[in-house]
């Protein structure tokens, strides 16, 4: 049964090929069946593989498919590697992916490019599965770039609007910065350890490199560069909010549930390397912490429903990085899984709301929609509770695990924990600000909104609701993967600390209620305080990161491009052309058309020649 893993990426690939070769000539019915069905089949295979893997009790299982290349000791194969970590990932990708595909058949039903959409989606799932199943870093990198490409294609899916194309290019270029660092990291790893096979490489690194030495630190830093690019962490987080230009199911699948968590997967996969470089690992924690706080501030000031969720995604991935940084490997992956559930739910719910309100995305033009959109209301209630780690929802368990692990870090543990808890407080505020503004208060537009109907939209939402509520009880088989790291021990934490962790998000919800639910406090009054408007603008712009990068990189580049618009190299050749043209113009003036001038020049030439002949 385990050898059937090769079927897993094959179905999406087939789906992609069929849809691509049909060139959009398929009717929407068959195209939807192929697009969603291929992922469904993959999910069935993934479930069967999971059952037999867990029953077999194996730690890992490799299925060689074929040799990719073999040159002078460099022989990466196309081998699929299954262990607890990749098992969790494939279940999330195919499971959540399947639900989102089914949802998309309803969401995209009116789109003329229906089959192109599913074509890209299938290609994405294929690449993502390669990413998590590859047994060597080169195959992982292939999937890594593949998902980047699909992300680009899908953000710019509605390419008629130049803004979407801009957002797609921005996402592509910004992640490329990280990818370049990662590629250099791969070169360095291969040059130093002679293999790209992940397990061999990790064993070799453990055997050859001392803890805290320079080489593991450099390679871990380079891999971290790739991870922050893909996972939209500081300093490369600017692309994710703009990536919301794509269709909403894309935001759910690629920019919340799967692709953006690839960086988390990468670090978890190469965690041995990070354990060899404790300083870099601590850096991971701080990157995560700072990102989650910054994104939390920004999320509180946004008005676009999708951008709020995008910043919340950045913030939640920050939690995963925090978890990775403090050594809570399985906590981070667990949070990845639960986040995939509730963030997919929130995005799909947002999609349903947006579709019901005729593509309205500004939350302040909604209001009091709980009667008109009961399903959307339920989505946001459950998803929001899970996101704010309400006790016994899925997010509660995973965030708990990360924060408790953060507290146990020596030295800076308390700071990391405190930052994480404050972040959770912000999560409560921005999530329920969105919730109260959209569903309570008075209606500020779209009074006649009707909820979109259709089982293919409602069913995935209900399944995701169940997963968001009860996903915390799903056991993740990660102990075998991370066991040689920190011993798994029972966490001890004082009741007071635990109380704070539970209470602060609830406190955040309460503040949101006071401002936006009941109207006892008013945001306008807060805004009239001196300086608050500037602060709002600063946070709203994502801490001015876009402007900073425009100033540091984009504008200098544009300036140089403008200066060099007439290529300097070309100028040399242009000069040659100008010289010969000038010579031509000079000589052309002798061609007057008057016979006597020709005669004169002949005579003069003759005289000159003869004089030269006589004189010499």
């Amino acid at each position, binding site marked *: 049964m385990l050898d059937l893993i090769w079927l897993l990426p094959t179905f999406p690939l087939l789906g992609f090929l069929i849809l691509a070769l049909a060139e959009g000539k398929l009717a929407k019915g068959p195209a939807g069946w192929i697009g969603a069905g291929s992922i469904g089949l993959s999910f069935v295979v993934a479930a069967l593989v999971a059952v037999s893997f867990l029953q077999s009790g194996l730690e890992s299982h490799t299925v060689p498919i074929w040799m990719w290349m073999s040159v002078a000791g460099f022989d990466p194969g196309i081998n699929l590697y299954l262990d607890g970590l990749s098992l969790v990932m494939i279940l999330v990708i195919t499971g959540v992916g399947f639900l989102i595909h089914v949802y998309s058949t309803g969401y995209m039903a009116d789109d003329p490019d229906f089959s192109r959409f599913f074509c890209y989606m299938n290609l994405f799932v294929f690449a993502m599965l390669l990413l998590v199943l590859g047994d060597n870093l080169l195959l992982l990198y292939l999937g890594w770039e593949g998902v980047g490409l699909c992300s680009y294609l899908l953000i710019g899916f509605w390419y008629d609007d130049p803004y979407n194309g801009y957002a797609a290019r921005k996402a592509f270029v910004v992640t490329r910065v990280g990818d370049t660092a990662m590629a250099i990291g791969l070169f360095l790893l291969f040059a130093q350890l002679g293999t790209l096979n992940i397990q061999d490489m990790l064993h070799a690194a453990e055997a050859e490199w001392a803890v805290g030495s320079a080489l593991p630190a450099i390679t871990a830093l380079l891999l971290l560069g790739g991870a922050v690019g893909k996972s939209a962490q500081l300093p490369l987080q600017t692309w994710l909010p703009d990536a919301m230009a794509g269709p909403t199911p894309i935001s759910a699948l690629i920019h919340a549930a799967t692709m953006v968590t690839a960086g988390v997967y990468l670090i978890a996969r190469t965690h041995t390397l990070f354990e060899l470089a404790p300083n870099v690992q601590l850096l991971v924690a701080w990157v995560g912490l700072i990102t989650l706080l910054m994104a939390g501030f920004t999320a509180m000031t946004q008005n676009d429903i999708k951008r709020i969720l995008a910043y919340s995604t950045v913030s939640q991935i920050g939690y995963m990085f925090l978890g990775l940084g403090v050594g809570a490997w399985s906590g981070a992956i667990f949070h990845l899984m639960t986040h995939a559930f509730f963030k997919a739910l929130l995005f799909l719910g947002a999609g349903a709301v947006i579709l019901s309100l005729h593509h309205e995305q500004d939350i302040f033009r909604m209001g009091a929609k709980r009667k008109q959109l009961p399903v959307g209301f339920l989505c946001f209630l459950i998803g929001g509770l899970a996101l704010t780690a309400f006790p016994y929802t899925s997010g509660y368990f995973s965030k708990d695990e990360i924060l408790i692990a953060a507290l146990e870090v020596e030295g800076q543990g308390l700071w990391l924990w405190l930052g994480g808890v404050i972040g959770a407080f912000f999560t409560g505020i921005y999530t329920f600000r969105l919730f109260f503004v959209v569903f309570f208060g008075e209606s500020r537009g779209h009074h006649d909104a009707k909820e979109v109907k259709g089982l293919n939209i409602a069913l995935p939402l209900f399944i995701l609701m169940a997963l968001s509520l009860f996903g915390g009880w799903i056991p993740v088989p990660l102990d075998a993967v991370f066991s040689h790291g920190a011993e798994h021990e029972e966490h001890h934490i004082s009741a007071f600390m635990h109380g704070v962790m539970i209470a602060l998000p609830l406190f955040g919800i309460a503040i949101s209620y006071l401002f936006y639910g009941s109207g006892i406090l008013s945001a306008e009054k807060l805004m009239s305080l001196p300086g608050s408007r500037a602060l709002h603008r600063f946070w709203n712009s994502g801490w001015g990161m876009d402007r900073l990068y425009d100033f540091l990189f984009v504008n200098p580049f544009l300036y140089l491009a403008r200066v060099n618009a007439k290529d300097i190299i070309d100028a040399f050749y242009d000069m040659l052309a100008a010289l010969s043209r000038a010579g031509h113009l000079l000589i*052309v003036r002798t*061609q*007057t*058309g*008057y*016979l*006597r001038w020709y*005669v*004169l020049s002949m*005579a003069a030439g003759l005289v000159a020649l003869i004089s030269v002949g006589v004189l010499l």
Partner: protein
Amino acid sequence: MGAIPVEHGLILAGILFSLGLIGVLTRRNIVFVLMSLEVMLNACGLAFIVAGSRWEQADGQIMFVLILTLAAAEVAVGLGLIIQMYRRFQTVDINVLSELKG
């Protein structure tokens, strides 16, 4: 025979040649240009004769006969062209024919 110094002959040829050249350069009527060309050709012929007599060789006279035929042919062709030109442009002014100008 009272010998004419060779210098005299050559100077005369040079003067004739220069006169012809000046005529070619300054005349606007193409018939006169053609006539000036004849003068130049004959100046050349005179130079050959003088040189032939100076070195007592027959070559000079042979060259003169050659130039004479050449001049006759040239006049025939030239006059033909002049007639064509006159028919086409109703003028014999060579300045009008400056259409080759670049």
